[in-house]
């Protein structure tokens, strides 16, 4: 069976080494406030280009997975989430730490993260094939509608203002337009600059937006994490972990469902899981005061999101989160385009990825248990030491991708732009998605109209296209209308 071949590939010593390296980097990236799985992925992106596709992808996936757990280390130890998906873990993790039970809390987090990771991987294996088969039947009209739907749902869900999300998405589409038109070859928005003729590369944009912008943020705020003390307290007993199964199962189910929706993401999933766990509990008053279930459910949810977020990415080519967008960048660097044909064209890679998820979970358990004394030292690094290194790696890494200094300038431009956008409340993910989905949206729009001799009814004649466009419109209209209704009610009262 193909999955066994996938395991055979994944378990080769070199690939195992890359999974272990990705896991260790992921735990560190997740644990250090200011970094995250996205920054970690953006930083290893230039390193993966010299690897073959399987180890490159295994390293990135294990980093993504481990970073979700890593975020809980600082969430539990100092009450500051290392990355945003660990926010819900602070509610009960930090009170447990203050009671001297940090070891127990970290053990619960690790076990729940590993279980959630396995369930997310199983969801990916189950859902990928049928969704890919459905997407194979898409023509230009449906593909255009799918691109618009992906953009609109991410723009409306990420950030606080749907309009600012839309601006971000449109800017991303504008960045896609830069370069030669794919159908006619005429230059667009190049302003006579030769280096822009090939268009803007995705990877410098990703590194600029997610690594350099984050470094600028730290440079401006000059915030340092609280020093981490020694982690005390015994680890949880097997019986206690077994008793947390219902919480972990609920959290994983919520994470799997929310993670598969583009734009929803691990942070929302973990907060919903914590809230639902509290509602389901017979002792809701213990939540927020150190309830073990309050750690297990959100941690299972944010790790289940990892596998679930890969479903739209691999089946449709739509990354549902910032980390998935960087993973897509990693695939593009390897010359692989995710989408409905991926399973047919790259079956060994996909099955290695399935196996890699499960092996990465095992490695996360090992690294998580053995590494606790080390993480406490690494996490205590000052921003003033860390962030200059992030900038240095970003610039050198961007240059190294093609040996082109212009790419480093592009990364700096996007770093400054991303920083400014974040400061003004514009989410970055829709802009990245605009650059990624631009070809899908514009090319299929023009192809559909060419096939229909310029008639726009082609987009509503297909039921799938119509449904996707209605959903896209609703994803914008609902939050805007809800805001209006809320303001109207407030004025009336």
């Amino acid at each position: 069976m193909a999955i066994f071949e996938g395991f055979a590939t994944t378990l080769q010593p070199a690939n195992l080494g890359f999974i272990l390296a990705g896991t260790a980097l992921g735990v560190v990236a997740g644990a250090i406030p200011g970094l995250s799985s996205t920054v970690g992925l953006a930083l290893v992106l230039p390193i993966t280009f010299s690897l073959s596709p399987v180890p490159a992808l295994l390293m990135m996936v294990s980093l993504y997975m481990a970073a979700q757990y890593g975020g809980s280390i600082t969430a539990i130890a100092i009450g500051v989430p290392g990355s945003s998906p660990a926010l819900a873990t602070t509610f009960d993790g930090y009170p447990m730490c203050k009671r001297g039970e940090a070891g127990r809390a970290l053990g619960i987090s690790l076990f729940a993260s590993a279980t959630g990771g396995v369930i997310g991987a199983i969801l990916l294996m189950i859902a990928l094939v049928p969704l890919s088969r459905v997407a194979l039947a898409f023509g230009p009209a449906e593909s255009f509608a799918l691109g618009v739907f992906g953009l609109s749902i991410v723009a409306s869900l990420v950030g606080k203002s749907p309009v600012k999300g839309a601006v971000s998405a449109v800017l991303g589409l504008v960045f896609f337009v830069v370069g030669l038109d794919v159908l006619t070859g005429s230059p667009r928005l190049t302003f006579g600059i030769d280096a822009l003729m090939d268009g803007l590369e995705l990877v410098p944009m990703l590194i600029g937006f997610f690594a350099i912008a984050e470094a600028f943020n730290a440079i401006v705020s000059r915030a340092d994490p609280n020093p981490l003390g020694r982690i005390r307290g015994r680890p949880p007993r097997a019986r206690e972990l077994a008793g947390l199964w219902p919480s972990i199962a609920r959290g994983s189910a919520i994470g799997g469902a929310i993670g598969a929706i583009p734009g929803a993401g691990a942070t929302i999933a973990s907060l919903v899981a914590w809230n639902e766990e509290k509602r389901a509990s017979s002792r809701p008053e213990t939540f927020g005061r150190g309830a073990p279930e309050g750690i297990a459910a959100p941690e299972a949810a944010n790790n289940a999101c990892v596998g679930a977020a890969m479903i739209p990415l691999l089946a449709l080519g739509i990354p549902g989160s910032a980390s998935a967008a960087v993973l897509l960048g990693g695939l593009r660097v390897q010359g692989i385009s995710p989408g409905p044909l991926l399973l047919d064209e790259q079956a060994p890679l996909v099955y290695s990825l399935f196996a890699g998820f499960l092996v990465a979970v095992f490695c996360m358990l090992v690294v998580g248990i053995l590494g606790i004394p080390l993480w406490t030292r690494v996490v205590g690094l000052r921003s003033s030491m860390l962030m200059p290194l992030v900038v240095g790696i970003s610039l050198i890494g961007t240059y190294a991708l093609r040996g082109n200094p212009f790419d480093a300038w592009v990364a700096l431009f996007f770093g400054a732009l991303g920083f400014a956008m974040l400061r003004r409340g514009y989410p970055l993910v829709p802009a990245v998605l605009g650059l990624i989905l631009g070809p899908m949206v514009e090319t299929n729009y023009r192809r559909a109209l060419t096939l229909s001799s310029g008639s726009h009814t082609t987009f509503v004649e297909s039921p799938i296209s119509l449904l996707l466009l209605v959903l896209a419109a609703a994803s914008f209209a609902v939050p805007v209308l809800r805001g209006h209704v809320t303001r109207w009610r407030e004025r009336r009262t």
Partner: protein
Amino acid sequence: MSRHLGRWVEPLLLVTIAVGIFVDSLSYPSAVVPGAPGPAFFPRLLSLVLAACAGWLAWRPPGAAGLSLGGSDSTGGSIRFGSAIVLIAGFLLLASRLDTYVLLPLLVGGLMAIMGERRVPALAGIPILFTLFVYLVFVQALGVPLPARLS
């Protein structure tokens, strides 16, 4: 800048970008296939959507503008940001003319100093160790030639 004026800055900037895109699209060739949109259609559509969003933001500015540079720290933050940009731009300008292995420690050390690092051993040691790391990983392990006059 007054709050009232600040409200118009973002919409005006977005409208300027939209107009720039529209004007640039006027020079694109027309459609090859009759009835189908040409290369100018999509950029023009984007410029219209951007202008509409700008109009919406001017009419109904969202309550929270996101993070600000932060109260009393705002001037210091702006100076640090500006210094970092100048330092990085200087590095990129000079890297192809001078030597990456000389400039990289200066870049990292400079950024550390901007971020408030004052310990001399850290300011001296970390940039050198980092440059060594870059040399080992990118040049030796990955085989990427960095701009280096001396090597």
